């Protein structure tokens, strides 16, 4: 399915940044004039497919995708600001900045509302906030959850790594490397068994390739022809190791193809490519055609995770990887990837296609910022949890006895 060609799409230059914060965020990109090496940072789906489905979409849908990308980006920017400035703030995050087009493009191809037995399901990873927003969770309650508030999306039990909202088909984050894809394939198994046309999707990083569960997932998805989509977000690193430390393939998709599963390698920075790949996969799955493996080549701008009390550039903060132990991320690599920012790519496409005026697109970014700001204001003013509630939700009913008192 994959067809890499060497000519990168012409880069759009747009220096009109929408805000100071945005400018600060992208300052690294601005520091370098180096040309982007297109070969490994950009991958393409089969040429004939590019823009195929997306070009036929109503304007509203395309604008929605752009808005989703902005929401993810500004959720993180705003959260990062909280971490850097608000000493009361307690939330942490595995940042998704740089990868927004992947979650957005995939979820745009899914059925995200309706009764639970009709919507498509998404399983996320330890890096869930982008997936969650793209699937349609309520951002204010997610913000509250990430700061451990009683009225948060999951009552303060989940925090970032276990957020979940089945009402929009976001089964949730799991914080683990390994199990999620197998479990997601089990949902697909049940969908097929009950004759539903739903689809089950898992987002998993390049790190998941090495887990033994990878084999089980793909093997059973193929054997049973499950309505299952494996979205491999290959951002080149798992924590502090390059994926070549754990995977002998240049494209992880090669591993999936060997099971006889259709694979698509896409440029994860381009929401339209991602959408087209996902749409093909969803159509196949709904029609009973079985699983698809999508590998999105992408990159995270920040360090593996960020936590409150952070100072930019220090461990636990964001910026370059500080714990560059085994194989670190070269500065040039980070900068080169930042040149192909998913926000800009999406905006330029919309402008090029005449879907939106540039100014309207920039105005929308301001709207989204304001919306997110309000979400943080609401979320961070919510009540803290009640200690005793820790004894609830162990089983569907009742509470368990406290045991810490002897």
């Amino acid at each position, binding site marked *: 399915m994959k067809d890499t060609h060497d000519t990168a799409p012409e880069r759009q230059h747009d220096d009109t940044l929408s805000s100071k914060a945005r400018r600060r965020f992208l300052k690294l990109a601005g520091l370098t004039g180096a040309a982007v090496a297109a070969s490994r940072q950009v991958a393409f789906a089969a040429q004939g497919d590019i823009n195929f489905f997306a070009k036929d979409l109503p304007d509203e849908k395309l604008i929605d995708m752009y808005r989703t990308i902005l929401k993810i980006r500004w959720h993180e920017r705003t959260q990062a600001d909280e971490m850097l400035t608000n000493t009361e703030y307690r939330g942490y995050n595995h940042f998704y900045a740089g990868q927004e087009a992947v979650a957005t493009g995939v979820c745009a191809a899914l059925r995200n509302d309706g009764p*639970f*037995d009709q919507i498509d*399901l998404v399983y996320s990873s330890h890096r869930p906030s982008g997936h969650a927003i793209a699937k349609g969770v309520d951002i204010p309650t997610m913000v509250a959850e990430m700061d451990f508030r009683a009225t*948060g*999306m*999951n*009552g*303060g*039990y*989940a925090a970032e790594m*276990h*957020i*979940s*909202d*089945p009402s929009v088909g976001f*089964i*949730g984050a*799991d914080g*683990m490397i390994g*199990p999620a894809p*197998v*479990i*997601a*394939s*089990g*949902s*697909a*198994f*049940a*969908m*097929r*068994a*009950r004759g539903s046309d*739903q689809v*089950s999707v898992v987002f998993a990083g390049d790190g998941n390739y090495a887990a*033994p*569960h990878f084999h*089980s*997932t793909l*093997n*059973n998805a193929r*054997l*049973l022809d499950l309505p299952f989509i494996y979205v491999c977000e290959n951002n080149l690193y798992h924590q502090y190791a390059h994926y070549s430390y754990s995977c002998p393939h240049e494209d992880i998709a090669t591993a999936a193809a060997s099971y006889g599963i259709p694979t698509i390698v896409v440029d994860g920075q381009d929401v339209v490519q991602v959408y087209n790949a996902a749409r093909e996969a969803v159509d196949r799955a709904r029609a009973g055609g079985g699983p698809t493996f999508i590998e999105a080549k992408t990159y995270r701008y920040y360090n593996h995770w960020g936590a409150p009390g952070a100072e930019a550039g220090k461990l636990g903060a964001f910026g370059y990887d500080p714990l560059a132990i085994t194989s670190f991320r070269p500065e040039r690599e980070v900068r080169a990837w930042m040149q192909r920012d998913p926000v800009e790519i999406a905006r330029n496409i919309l402008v090029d296609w005449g879907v939106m005026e540039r100014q309207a697109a920039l105005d929308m970014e301001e709207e989204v910022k304001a919306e997110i700001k309000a979400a943080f204001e609401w979320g961070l003013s919510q009540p803290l949890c009640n200690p005793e509630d820790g004894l*609830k*939700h*162990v*089983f*569907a*009913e009742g509470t*368990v006895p406290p045991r810490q008192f002897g």
Partner: protein
Amino acid sequence: MAQKSWMYSVLEAVQYEMREDPAMTWIFELTPPVASNPGKPVINLETEFGRKRCVNTGIDENWMASAVLGAGLSGSKAATYIPYQGACIPFEVIQNVAGKLRHMTGGKAEMPVVWVIEMTGQTPGFAGQHSCYEEDSYYMHIPGIRTVIPSTPYDAKGLMHAALRSPDPVVYLYPAGLRTLTEEVPDEPYEVPLDKAAVRTEGSDLTIVSSGAGMPDVLEAAKMLADEGAGIEVIDLRALKEMDTETLVTSVAKTKRLLTVDQSYYTLCPGAEVIARVAENVDGARYKRVAFPDAPPPASPEMFTWMRPDVANVVEAARAML
């Protein structure tokens, strides 16, 4: 009502629930969901419900266990039968994912799933994974999972109905050696609660607590002791998690003597928890455990049968306490 085998009783419950709920699925690997019983129709889940709902997979118990979890999360009731050789292969996903998921999501995750986990332990001559009986302890330490273990065909059926109807994930331990048991079992569905011990015999001199494959020998021992005039209260735990503390404490408050019997290894066998719970609540009682030594099961029948607690061991330990 008819005399039914263990396996038939269990599959009768599964068949009933699968007929009630067209979304319910069953995943198996070695043990086909087939049972026959004199005077009753053959049950074959694979032919009755088809291969979309009843699947024979490859040898990948972690996939089996994870798949039913995923099925449950997507809204379908689901169960799987894990053969004893693979009894702990799905341990991590049950312990680390399923057990925590409802709580971790603030109550949002629904998991109407049952893992039937076969245990051996009744098989001299096989050694190692083919002969051990230790899973009770591992699975009962997990919060968020209801872990039960029947010891009679009647309970096996009733616990299976209750497990399949429960919104909580259930580890249903299945002592393979009890498969030969038969008894009168109703045709209709009925539930045995997932959190109640059963007092099998009443008495005021000594409480003996056991479960699963330990029960037949314990009951025989109790009968011998009763014939000698001792009042033995035999408790079958049935629910390992949540354990029915009240029944245990009430009994030992009366008898002041507690003997536990396990085929699990001594260290942290279910009896350790039984004793600890009682000892926290009853003063001045005496305690003893009979269990498999802290050694893997050897193949040699001479060694193995000597090490596995039997009727004589129970009788002797009880006599020493009376």
